[in-house]
């Protein structure tokens, strides 16, 4: 059997969640690009069009889930890459805190913007 090489300790919860979010993101990221560059053109996007889409609860829910899964997948991926570079001790702890704060800030701001766009807030 060929040798495997992974950033994660295989079978751990972050390893599993990285793959679950990946399966979701493959579909939603492709949909997002297709909708906003081919069905609609990014250069023609207006606030009215955005709010019309975000007022659909299914679309809003998909976009918020997209944000949350992308944030987890991205930040967890960065953390795994840094661990691979040999991060240990205090530096590892500092990176954990910085990435956690950045992820929470991104998720909170993105969710807030989505709710404003949808007219909920």
């Amino acid at each position: 059997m060929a040798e495997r090489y992974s950033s994660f300790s295989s079978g751990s919860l972050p390893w599993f969640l990285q793959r679950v979010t990946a399966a979701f993101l493959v579909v939603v990221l492709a949909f997002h690009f297709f909708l906003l560059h081919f069905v609609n053109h990014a250069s023609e996007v207006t606030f009215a069009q955005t709010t019309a889409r975000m007022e659909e609860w299914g679309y809003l829910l998909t976009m918020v889930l997209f944000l949350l899964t992308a944030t987890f997948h991205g930040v967890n991926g960065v953390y795994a890459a840094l661990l691979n570079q040999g991060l240990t001790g205090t530096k590892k702890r500092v990176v954990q805190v910085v990435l956690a704060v950045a992820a929470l800030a991104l998720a909170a701001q993105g969710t807030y913007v989505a709710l404003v766009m949808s007219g909920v807030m």
Partner: protein
Amino acid sequence: MSQSYNRGLIEDFGRWREFTAGMWAWILHKFTGWVLIGYLFTHIAVLSTALSGANAYTNTLQGLESLLLVRVMEVGLLAVAVFHILNGVRLLFVDLGVGLEAQDKSFYASLVVTAVIVLASIPTFLEGAF
């Protein structure tokens, strides 16, 4: 019979000439991942102009889209996203133990399909930019 061999550390980028297809796939997946998470922070910052009202949002988006540099960078973002998606699907299959023996070929296929999708998308992405 199981076989294993030591390819050495992939993080030792100085020995890039010795890297195999799977190692290049690994590096490109990391690189495109860093770009995508960096872009996500930028994307939410730009969309946050919606908090300043309809005009601020529309003018910001359309102002950015009027710049050729932004359009070209969007093509780059598409390339990065498509490769990360295709190689990500490849990794999910490898994790399931499917196609492990052809993992180098599926990496080359990811590169070719990415190139085809990106080249075919350029007219749409640059429409009205000139």
